[in-house]
């Protein structure tokens, strides 16, 4: 039971629907649990592939339109595949007034992508987050699980280079 889906040019991915079934099994019959179900699916695939969402809709007996409405409402859910490294630029107040826009701009310059986009080689995805809560390290970015704090624009290039 698998479908091949064109997720991006030159990237094809197999979506294992039986995996989806096992992920959402605990939530069947509980329509209010659609958010945790989608969270599980996204944890596994890194984003919400359309065939997987269709499967959730069928199994949980919730119209696809409604699931789509929920999934697009919350910032956490991603409808497109993302890069190996997720750069999260903290846009909290403390980071903002200590220069996070300048850090974000520098990253955008280097990677030639804007916030919310992924590089063509699927190496980096650039995102903004409201607050990481590491205000003592402002301005701070996270790359996957690693925080990089007290940044200035001139430090950005070396940091990005260390993630290949």
């Amino acid at each position: 039971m698998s479908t091949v889906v064109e997720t991006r040019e030159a990237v094809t991915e197999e979506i294992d629907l039986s995996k989806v079934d096992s992920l959402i099994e605990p939530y069947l019959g509980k329509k209010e649990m659609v958010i945790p179900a989608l969270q599980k699916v996204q944890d596994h695939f890194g984003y919400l592939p359309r065939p997987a969402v269709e499967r959730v809709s069928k199994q949980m007996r919730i119209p696809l339109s409604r699931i789509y409405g929920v999934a697009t409402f919350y910032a956490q859910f991603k409808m497109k595949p993302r890069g190996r490294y997720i750069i999260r630029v903290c846009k909290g107040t403390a980071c903002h007034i200590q220069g996070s826009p300048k850090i974000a701009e520098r990253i955008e310059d280097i990677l030639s992508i804007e916030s919310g986009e992924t590089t063509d080689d699927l190496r980096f995805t650039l995102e903004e987050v409201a607050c990481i809560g590491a205000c003592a390290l402002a301005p701070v970015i996270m790359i996957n699980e690693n925080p990089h704090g007290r940044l200035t624009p001139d430090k950005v290039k070396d940091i990005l280079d260390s993630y290949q």
Partner: protein
Amino acid sequence: MYEKHLMICGATGCLSSGSSQVEEALIEELEKHGIKDKYRLVMGGCPGFCEVGPLIVVYPDEVFYSRLKPKDMAELVEKHLVGGEIVERLLYKGPDVDAPARFYDTIPFYAKQKFNVLRNSGLIDPESIDEYIMRGGYRAFTRALNMDSTTICEEVKQAGLRGRGGAGFSTGLKWELTYKAPSSKKYVVCNADEGDPGAFMDRSILEGDPHAILEGMLICGRAIGADEGYIYCRAEYPLAIKRLKTAIEDAERYGLLGENILGYGFNFKMNIKEGAGAFVCGEETALLASIEGKRGMPRPRPPFPAQSGLFGKPTTINNVETFANVPLIVKEGGVDEFVKVGTDGSKGTKVFALAGKIRNTGLCEVPMGITIREIIYDVGGGIKGGRAFKAVQAGGPSGGCIPDELIDLPIDYDSLNQAGAIMGSGGLVVMDERTCMVDLARYFLSFTQKESCGKCTPCREGTKRMLEILNRISEGLGKPEDLDTLDSLATSIKDSSLCGLGQTCPNPVLSTIRYFRNEYEEHIEEHFCRAGVCKELFNYRIDEEKCTGCTACVKACPVDAIKGEKKEPHEIIQELCTRCGSCIEKCRQDCIMITPVGSEADVSN
């Protein structure tokens, strides 16, 4: 029996500055000396002082080690643990102390604090229910089991506890309303969707003392007659969620959650719901919709959740910090003790997250009624880099700024409201002369505009129009009538929005116009941003007289826009400069000026 307990701060702030590497190094050193079994290491809650993390506190000696690096562990183990001598080098040092300081009594950051809510944070192992119980935990709940609902509500009312999440509604009254609503099924909901940028109080409480939240919710359940609770926590707080899960499992194992608790015929089931990243879900009706698996959009009130809340049942929703206060009130003699602290209208303490251009970034808990000056200068240690204090933003995107001239304002619900700010959840972001107030207003509004759920028109469209105007002003395209337009838009949005997000989101704009009108006018009329933030509205220039030609700025510039030989005055090539500010950070001579575009002179001072 352990000889000493070593509490390593394992909260997000210290983890980000490397506390787990410090822990690894510590374990390695202890093993090297073969004394690992003599010491108990706990990755504990947050002692609050994030600025000087990673931290270790050694008990019972009460020695506070700060700014630790893995390589310091050899000395700490050898000198202190083996040799019994305090490692002076690793103690807290700062301009506010004469000599290296040992602990709470000597570190100025702690001197004015009063620990109620943070009573256990950093002191106990947050993953041990036994330690919570040893510190008097669950005693208030067992007392509540012997009380009737009205008495519990009455005590909470007497204590004058007001919601710590923002609006400051009386908690006891809220409980009473839910109690009186007729229904066989009711819910207790804990709002742990802490979304204000720059605020991390709730996270620290959840990470440092999760049982206090459970106990507060249980007492609430007992008071209103609910048998089920939900904690709605941001998914961005994985550690808090993990600790809550452990706490719930332990409480179930101890018979403090589940069926027929302690034989009193009281049942309570606790659930955790992870938020999925929507700021509006901090609004109570939106939060309830999200728990129900829907888009997190608010709905008009009434009916209030106390009448019709989660799944249509009467529901009490309180914030994390509110619940953490409850056991202190309901314990034996708690009310009398609680009302001793605070002001007439605002009782108890408040936890604040201090951030921004302040020396001591971190978490502090202070009595209500303390002045802003005391928080900033005594607790916070003053402004970073010795620049001038300009304003403090209280209450995040729903709040307002408080300028220098109101620095002696006491912090309580009513004084803050009068000043155009709100208590909010407790974020205090400090700003200095390098913060542009127009940009700040624009920043908050762009946040709320993005987070507006789109359900009601004033918020959806109004924030967008306001943001367009602010964007224009910060690009130098402002018009003289803009300020009046902003004011009238703001008033309409406040009056006509459906939920708290819309009703409060114009506050940052209104309060910055109220206190920093001249700065707006300077942007509009003179096209100049003296703080050096709005990029189109200033240039960096090097003061040739002061420049010593040290080349620090040349090296720092990422776009090679600074030329100049060693020991010769440097020059910035304006066409190449991106105004990223790397140079001004690095310049030790203070010779980089912020000047109006086209002008040679420094008018920023």
